[in-house]
């Protein structure tokens, strides 16, 4: 690394002036957004300071169990987000378990492979590498899985008559549900496809920008970014496929029936 410029708290205060300006404009124009802006900004500051302190401690302690504990917390929290982002979700333990399981298997699995073979840190679980990488992979997989499950469940409810018409004509469950499954997979894949297509032209990814600002050579930053994007793409795809196929399996049975009674509306038990 070279040319790293340390930021002072005064620099951060100056940067926050633009956000304060937005709040002032909201007050002046009676937009009613100033409170939400203030709360969101305060949450962000507190969360980032806390995570900074936590990461600093974790990096210095270098404990595999503490690293695993934080990783498990990240997975469980992301699973809660997947569960919360669906208008209609699977009843019971499946509602939380399927999305979380698919995301954890894909995200944690791919991160593990990357850490042990590509990053080559010693030890491989070094929290300075493992946790940020897991965070990026999980965050994107979480978005894909929640979009796919939400689209799948809404479509199945809307298309029930058409699906049952196909089942009554002798189609099996995979054929009858294929259009809904395809739409769900497309919804889950779309954010990462868009992100990959726009990266470097429309936007510079946050991680790469951060590295460049902190003095890393841009070609090295690009290599890291490519690695991360490949991992995110692979994990999102795998997680979306697992979750969507798992949900189709759960919402049908061995007699090729549609079992929509296994879905529940979000606000009923949120």
């Amino acid at each position, binding site marked *: 690394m070279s040319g790293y410029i340390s930021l002072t708290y005064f620099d951060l205060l100056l940067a926050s002036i633009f956000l304060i300006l937005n709040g002032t404009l909201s007050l002046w124009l009676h937009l009613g957004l100033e409170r939400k802006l203030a709360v969101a900004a305060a949450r962000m500051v507190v969360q980032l300071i806390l995570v900074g302190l936590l990461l600093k401690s974790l990096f210095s302690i270098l404990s595999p169990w503490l690293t695993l504990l934080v990783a498990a917390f990240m997975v469980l929290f992301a699973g809660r987000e997947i569960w919360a982002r669906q208008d209609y979700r699977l009843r019971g333990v499946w509602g939380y378990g399927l999305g979380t399981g698919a995301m954890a298997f894909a995200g944690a699995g791919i991160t593990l492979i990357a850490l042990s073979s590509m990053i080559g840190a010693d030890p491989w679980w070094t929290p300075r590498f493992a946790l940020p990488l897991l965070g990026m992979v999980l965050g994107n997989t979480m978005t894909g899985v929640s979009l796919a499950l939400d689209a799948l469940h809404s479509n199945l409810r809307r298309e029930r008559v058409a*699906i049952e*018409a196909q089942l009554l004509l002798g189609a099996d469950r995979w054929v009858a549900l294929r259009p809904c499954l395809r739409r769900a997979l497309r919804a889950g894949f779309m954010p990462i496809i868009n992100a990959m297509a726009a990266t470097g032209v429309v936007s510079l990814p946050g991680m790469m920008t951060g590295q460049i600002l902190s003095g890393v050579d841009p070609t090295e930053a690009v290599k890291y970014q490519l690695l991360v994007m490949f991992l995110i793409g692979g994990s999102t795809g795998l997680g979306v496929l697992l979750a969507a196929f798992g949900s189709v399996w759960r919402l049908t049975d061995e007699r090729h029936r549609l079992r929509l009674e296994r879905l529940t509306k979000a606000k009923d038990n949120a």
Partner: protein
Amino acid sequence: MLHVTNLTRLMIGPINLTIRDGECVALTGPSGTGKSVLLRAIADLDPNSGVVKTNDMQRETVSAPQWRKQVAMLPAESGWWQENVAAHFQTPDITRHHLPEVGLPIEAMGWEVARLSTGEKHRLALLRCLEANPQVLLLDEPTAALDQDTTLLIEALLKRQLASGTSILLVTHDTAQAKRMALRILHLEAGSLTEVTP
């Protein structure tokens, strides 16, 4: 032949019922008493218990898709999943010649689903149902959205099916139609069947 023994589903049953080859049995009863539930249970579209069999197969011994091809159900609301009518048929080039039998022109096979009326959809759904040449037909108010002339056309088509040996269970609220089509009329109320043949 359709043979149903101790069929139970939600609030209906146990139901015992036999429909011989070439026989039409009409099923009547107030709305919400489970007529459609019974048809769906026989077609194995909802979980249920009991023994259901035809001449040559017992429901549990064959796959559900295979069962539904032989015991075909026409629901009260027809479902469509493609934009074009023809895409919903296995053999559109053959079936198009049968369209006049349900009062539709041959060109209807090329129509967009979006332009179909409820009655047109229902008639096309009936033809679609017949494509696999089923042994048993479970019909849920097949003429509810049709005028008198078209209703008679559909009844004539169903009588030809009966003549070829197909068994039909016909849900209808039209007493006159029940008498025209069926030798036996069953009434479903409070979850059980009673014969009300005049």
